[in-house]
């Protein structure tokens, strides 16, 4: 139901696209109405969402949805570091007008893809797709990345670790650190590497989400936001919140801008 949507951005369209492909690849009809709001309708039209809506999709390991404007959507089950490299080459041209390397963005791609591959399903690895949408905003020298998977999400995954897993019971131990703790408090600890420290007694500088958080702290990316299960985080204002509606999966948004650090491009 899009009729009453008053505002939509490309991160929302990424979610919409991925849901549509999931439905259509399972041969489930996907239909609805059009937004009344003209601006919303135009954003959707520009994204070519309606063109994809007419298409047919099979259940495949990888999808690439493109348009002639500036939005690229990719979906895969495995980790594709070459795709990350290619996307950064093109993103850096939008941001700086020349090819550059951005190891923090590449690390973010790899950590998120690896998380989806390893942890999105409780049953088996490599079961779920990740979806990545890239939007080039040339007039602002800015590129926006939206990443989503429909796995079990960070907290549900941790809650359901088997007894022989090193993370078994770790969530409860993190909750104990707060008198009135919730998942938003725990996400803060996860970003700081406390999950590994609590599980193994050793604090790794980078592993998984802490690696992404470090890239953010070192100004390698900007405007980072994440939703997983009932937690929302936005880097602007260091804003952690518990949501009333739970999202089953993980959604991440970030930007590459002129303010971010980068390295000289090398062939």
């Amino acid at each position: 139901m899009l009729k009453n949507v008053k505002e939509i951005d490309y991160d929302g369209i990424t979610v919409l696209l991925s849901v549509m492909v999931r439905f259509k690849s399972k041969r489930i009809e996907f239909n609805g109405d059009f937004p009344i709001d003209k601006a919303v309708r135009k954003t959707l039209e520009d994204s070519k969402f309606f063109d994809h809506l007419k298409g047919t999709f099979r259940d495949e390991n990888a999808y690439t949805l493109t348009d002639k404007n500036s939005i690229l959507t990719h979906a895969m089950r495995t980790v594709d570091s070459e795709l990350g490299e290619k996307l950064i080459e093109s993103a850096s041209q939008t941001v700086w007008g020349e090819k550059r390397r951005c190891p923090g963005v590449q690390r973010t791609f790899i950590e998120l893809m690896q998380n989806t591959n390893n942890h999105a399903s409780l049953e088996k690895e490599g079961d779920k797709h990740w979806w990545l949408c890239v939007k080039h905003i040339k007039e602002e020298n800015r590129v926006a990345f939206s990443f989503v998977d429909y796995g079990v999400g960070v907290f549900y995954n941790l809650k359901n670790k088997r007894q022989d897993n090193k993370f078994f019971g770790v969530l409860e131990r993190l909750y104990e650190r707060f008198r009135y703790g919730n998942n938003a408090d725990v996400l803060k600890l996860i970003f700081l590497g406390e999950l590994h420290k609590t599980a193994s007694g050793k604090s790794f500088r980078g592993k998984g989400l802490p690696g992404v958080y470090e890239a953010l702290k070192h100004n390698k990316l900007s405007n980072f936001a994440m939703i997983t299960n009932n937690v929302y985080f936005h880097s602007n204002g260091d804003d952690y919140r518990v949501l009333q509606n739970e999202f089953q999966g993980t959604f991440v948004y970030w930007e590459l801008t002129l303010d971010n650090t980068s390295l000289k491009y090398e062939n």
Partner: protein
Amino acid sequence: MKIKIASEFSTAPGPRKVSEGKFSGELFRREILLPRVLEARDKKCKLTIDLDGTSGFGTSFLEESFGGLIRENDLSLATLDSMFNFVSNEEPDLLTEIREYMEEAEKAKGGKV
């Protein structure tokens, strides 16, 4: 002896395991790093590992490559310490990170750090 990952393996190092995607740490360790480590050990010479020039590293690639030498290939931290010379001018923090992975692998094996 020297390994430059960007030119000898890939400018886009990937995930941990071969099953997870291309240019994994497992593949790098098996095909390039381990043979070179064994050769350097036999020849009693230093092995320089140049991390510069790539598009960036995931944490699992680094852990699997360097922690994996200790965990999977039964090499000791002391042996690797006496041999390795890392170069990472572009991302100096990687050196500390790799060190942590190697120490943790050594500890997990019951070795002293």
